[in-house]
Every structure is written in C-alpha cells, then in structure tokens.
C-alpha cells in the first residue's frame, strides 16, 4: 500500500501528476464524472483514495459533482474534480455559488477541441474566456495553466493553496496534450512542500459573522459541525450571511468578491520571462504552447532577432501589469494560442497605444510548431 506523498522521481502522464499533486496538497474529497481526455485523473484517484483514506464518488453528472465538492469543502475537506469542456460548461452555475459562498475548491479542466462535443481526444485552449466569464455575474476567479507533467503537479498544489487562501474556486486550465504527455515528475519530501490552510475564526460562535472580512477582504471560514451555527446562501447577503437584496448590500458584496482577488494581483500572478531585457518582440504564451514558443524565441535569437518570451502561468486574474510594463519596451506582442483569439484580446487591450499585437491562432486539435511561431516572429521583425 502506497503513502500519500510519493517522494522521489517518477515518469508520469500529466493527468497522473495532477492526481498525485492533489493528494500531496491534502485533497481528500473527489467528485467527478467520466469524460475524455480527463478520465485518468478520476481513475487514478479512485485507486489511490482507499489507500490513504479519501472520499471518491463518481456522480451521476457534473452538476452533482461540483455541488458535492462545495458541500465537502464546507465540511472542511480540500475538494477537487476533473473534467473537460462539456462537463465544465455544466459546472458553471455552481462555480458561481462557490464564488458567492466563498468556497475553496479546485476544478481541473483538461481542454479539448470545441465548441460542443468538438474533438474529444484532441487538444485545444478554447476555454480561456469561459473560465473567466462562464458563470453569470461580475466576479473574479483564479486559473493556472501548466505546460508539462512536472508543472501540472506543482500547479495543482498551488491551486489548492490559492483556493484555501482566497476562498474561491480555482481552475487548473490544462489540456489534452499536457494530460497525455509523459515526463519526469519530481515529488519533494513531504516537509519541503508548502501547504496553505483556510483561515479559521478566532472569535467565539456568538461573535462570529461568517461574511465579515478581515483587512485582506477574506472572511475566516467556519465549517459545518464546528458549533458556529452559521447560514450561507447564493443570494446577495450581509455579513451575517442573511439574504439582503438591497442595492447597498449587493454593491458592497460584489465589490469585495472582486477586490479580494484584484487587490492581491501580485501575489496570485505568476509569469516566466526569458530574453526580455532587450526584446523588441515578445511572444506571450501559456500552457503547452509555451514550449514551442520558447523554442521559437531561441531560433529567432540565433537569427539576431531580439525576441523574448513571456509565459503566463497564471491565466486569471490576467497579468495586466506585466503586459503593461513590457508594452513600453517592445514593438510587438506575438500571441500563439490553440483557439481563434482569447488571451490575445487581453494582451491587445493592455498593449493598446504602446505596442502592436499579432495573433497566431490554431484550431484542429494539432499543436503549433516552433517553426510556425518562428516564421511569424521573423515576419514581424521585418515590418
């Protein structure tokens, strides 16, 4: 029987690395529904949880899966599900409930070709904007995107840490390519892994207000059965958690739900920059595409083109301060992505008036190659 933390070197598929990352992060509740290309995560968890004492339930659908995760998180468990586009669409309503009730949960979306049933077995990055805007209303959410099995492992842990810290659903926005590529994954010793737990109330139950935030705009979270007798609702509510549908209450709550993320942009946003010091052209990429993108930047450098790479690890909230800063230096942002222009829109918005932006779109479930990106960099450099 295996332990929870499998310290050592492994050769894992991205999807397996995600499952193991979740276990390391302390995830002990998993609810899901079979879907290609994400099923390996649920399969692996169903094998592992009985070994380490976690609750795995294959539900009747994704609607039930996400609802159960919210309930489990309110009972104190770190909870996760994994899905792909069609299932992610079904989860949107309760992502909104998670935002409104401020529930830490982690959703893994292994993206595939879309719209609709699309290309179930082939890769894509088409759910970027859905991740930001999929549920109704104005809200902020956190999404991270890995480019390899190792990064999938690391970022799954970070997803849990961010969910616990900010009391918000966090999405690991990965893809078929990362899920189904195998690579080396190093699992550090247990005591070398930093884990964050949600803030607990420090006041006695009679003084506890479930939605009274601290200075950081995040309220401490009591869980079911701890004697706090709190009530929570998807309705607009006051600090007691009671429904309050006045204009003032709504304005105050929606602002706080957004600001608790916006105000911590620098803590949440993570990017990797390479060759940017003297760059005229910046390739902005994320997820699997950042691998050919970095290679293309290398090819351009060999040609004497001053190209650099900005890899977005945090997709949402958007790294607007990063793009804004480099827009003053570079002439062009080149944005390769496996859709018809999503992060490109964000880059273009932030670069407006300072630098130009070029989209390299790719549909069809095929990866974009370094040469294809390199060719576009070269064209831009000759303008």
């Amino acid at each position, binding site marked *: 029987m295996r332990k929870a933390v499998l310290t050592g070197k492994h050769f894992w598929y991205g999807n397996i690395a995600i499952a193991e990352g979740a276990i390391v992060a302390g995830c002990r509740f998993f609810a899901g529904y079979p879907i290609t290309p994400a099923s390996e995560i649920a399969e692996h968890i169903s094998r592992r949880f009985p070994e380490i004492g976690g609750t795995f*339930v294959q539900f*009747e659908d994704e609607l039930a899966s996400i*609802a*159960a995760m919210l309930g*489990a998180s309110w*009972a104190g468990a770190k*909870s996760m599900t994994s899905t792909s586009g069609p299932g992610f669409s079904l989860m949107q309503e309760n992502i909104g409930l998670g935002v409104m009730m401020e529930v830490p949960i982690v959703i893994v979306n292994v993206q595939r070709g879309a719209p609709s049933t699309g290309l179930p077995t082939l890769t894509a990055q088409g759910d970027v904007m859905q991740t930001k805007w999929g549920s109704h209303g104005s809200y902020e959410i956190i999404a991270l995107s890995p480019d390899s099995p190792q990064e999938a492992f690391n970022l799954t842990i970070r997803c849990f840490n961010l969910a616990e810290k900010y009391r918000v659903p966090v999405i690991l926005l990965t893809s078929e390519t990362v899920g189904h590529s195998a690579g080396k994954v190093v699992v550090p010793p247990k005591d070398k892994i930093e884990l964050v737990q949600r803030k607990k109330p420090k006041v006695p139950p009679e003084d506890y207000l479930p939605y009274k935030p601290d200075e950081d705009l995040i309220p401490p979270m009591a869980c079911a059965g701890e004697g706090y007798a709190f009530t929570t609702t*998807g*309705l607009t509510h006051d600090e007691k958690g009671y429904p309050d549908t006045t204009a003032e209450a709504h304005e105050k709550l929606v602002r706080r739900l957004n600001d608790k993320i916006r105000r911590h942009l620098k803590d949440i946003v993570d990017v990797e920059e390479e060759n940017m010091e003297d760059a005229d052209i910046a390739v902005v990429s994320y997820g699997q595409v950042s691998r050919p993108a970095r290679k293309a930047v290398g090819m351009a450098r060999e040609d004497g083109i001053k190209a650099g790479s900005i890899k977005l690890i945090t997709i949402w909230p958007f790294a607007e301060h990063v793009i804004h800063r480099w827009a003053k230096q570079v002439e062009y942002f080149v944005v390769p992505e496996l859709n018809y222009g999503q992060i490109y829109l964000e880059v273009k918005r932030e670069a407006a008036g300072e630098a130009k932006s070029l989209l390299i779109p790719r549909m069809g479930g095929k990866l974009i190659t370094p040469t294809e990106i390199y060719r576009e960099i070269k064209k831009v450099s000759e303008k």
Partner: protein
Amino acid sequence: MNEQTIAEDKLELHPIDKWLRSERMPHIWCPGCGIGPTLYAWIRALDRVGIPKEKVVYVSGIGCCGRGSGYLDVDGFHTTHGRAIPFAIGLKLVKPELCVNVISGDGDLFSIGGNHFIHACRRNVDLLVICTNNFIYGMTGGQLAPTTPLGDRSTTSPYGNIEPSFNTPHLADASGAVYVARWTSIHVRRLEKSIAEAMEMKGFRYIEVLSPCPVSYGRRNKLPEPDDIAEWFRQSSIIRNGANTSEVQIEKEKPLILGNFVKRVGKPTFYELMKKLEEKVRGR
C-alpha cells in the same frame, strides 16, 4: 401589555424558539402555507430524538422551501436549484457524524433535481430528505410542476395540465430508499413521529409532506381560501401504513393515501461500504 416592561429573564420562550433565528422573523411564507408546520414537526422530531443543535445541518435548494435553512439556528446551506442533495452528500461523507437534512420543494427535488434524487436513493447515502409537495412552483408565481395533478391549472397550463404527475413515494421506493412515508402538513403529530422514526435510521430516508399553497395553487384550482387545501387534505386523507407505493398516486377525485410505507432494515449505506472497501484495500 407594553413589551418593554417585561424583563428579559421573565420572557417565556416558545419551546422551539431555541432552534430559530428569531431576528429574521417574520418569514416570507404566505398565510396558509404548509412549510411552517412541516418545519415545526421536523424541529419537534429533533428534540424528540435528542439531536444536539451543533450536529444538525440543514441543506435546501431554491424556491419557497429553500429559504427555510436561513431561519433555523443551525448550520444552514441555501444552495442552487436542484442541487441540495449532492451538496448534502458531499458534506455528509466528509462529516458522517452530522445529522444532515435536505428539506426542499417538489420542483427542486423532482424536476431540476430529479436525477440526483434517484441516484442518492440507489447509493443509499445517509440523508433525510423531506419534500414539501405543494403541487406547484410557488415562488415563481404558480407554474406547472412535475407533481401538479392532471387537469389542474397553473400559469403555464392555463387550460389544464396534460402531464401525468410523479408518484414520489413510489419513485423513492423503486430507487432503493430505506424509509418512505407520506403525510400532510395538517398531520403535524404523525409527521413528527414519522420524521423521528426516520431520524433514528441510517441510509436514504424520504418523507413527502403534502403542503397547501393557497396563493399560487389554490387560487387557480377552486381552493382559494387559506384553509381550503387543508380542508381537502382533511376530508380526503386515508392512513394506510405499509401501503404498496405503486398504489399511492395522487389523483384529484380519489383519496389521498398517507402513511409510513417502506422501512428496509439492514441495507448498508454508501459510507459503510466505502469504509469496508478502504479496509480491504489497506489490508492487501
């Protein structure tokens, strides 16, 4: 008597006051509504069984009944439409020591949430589910429900309902629930006893409570006064404990069959089977 002249320690509380968030009264429910008496029976059952407040969890969905979780001074979760059952399953599996209750309406549990209901019965998850069935969508203004009797009028069946309605005790029974009963909100004492009996069992337990909605259902179906539907219940009810659930379909001109219909003892719950599996895997 002037309220302010009563010293606080002299104030006599109603026996169920300790369960309520009195500061939230008055509630939103209309005169003649059956949700209040149903909650009263449920609270009395909690006292009768002796379940401490901090162990009680109340999960509700959306609709008139959904608002109940915010009026009780226990851990209360007002979730999304149709998803109270899976939400409660997640909570219960993580903290099996808690007494987790889903109290919701017929639209929430049997229309938008119908799939979760049958699967929770099948899995025998340890939950008590109480459905206040008022035959209509009350909060949204009286639209057709999956429980609206044939021929009845609603705002979306203005010429009369052409759809057969669910026989919810039969559905629960056929799907594997270990306890199935039906009462009405005027049978408060029998309902209380039935809820208490269910609370002392494990597994998926279901109680349907027929409940008047004079405003959204009665007015359109020749039962407009607050007590007209209660009177229909009083005159038409027949108690038949142990009745075959396939024979308890609600039809307007026929008797309403009430009673404790199903009690299955010894069926393992989902949680028990999960723990057994864990032992098996660990002992390998």
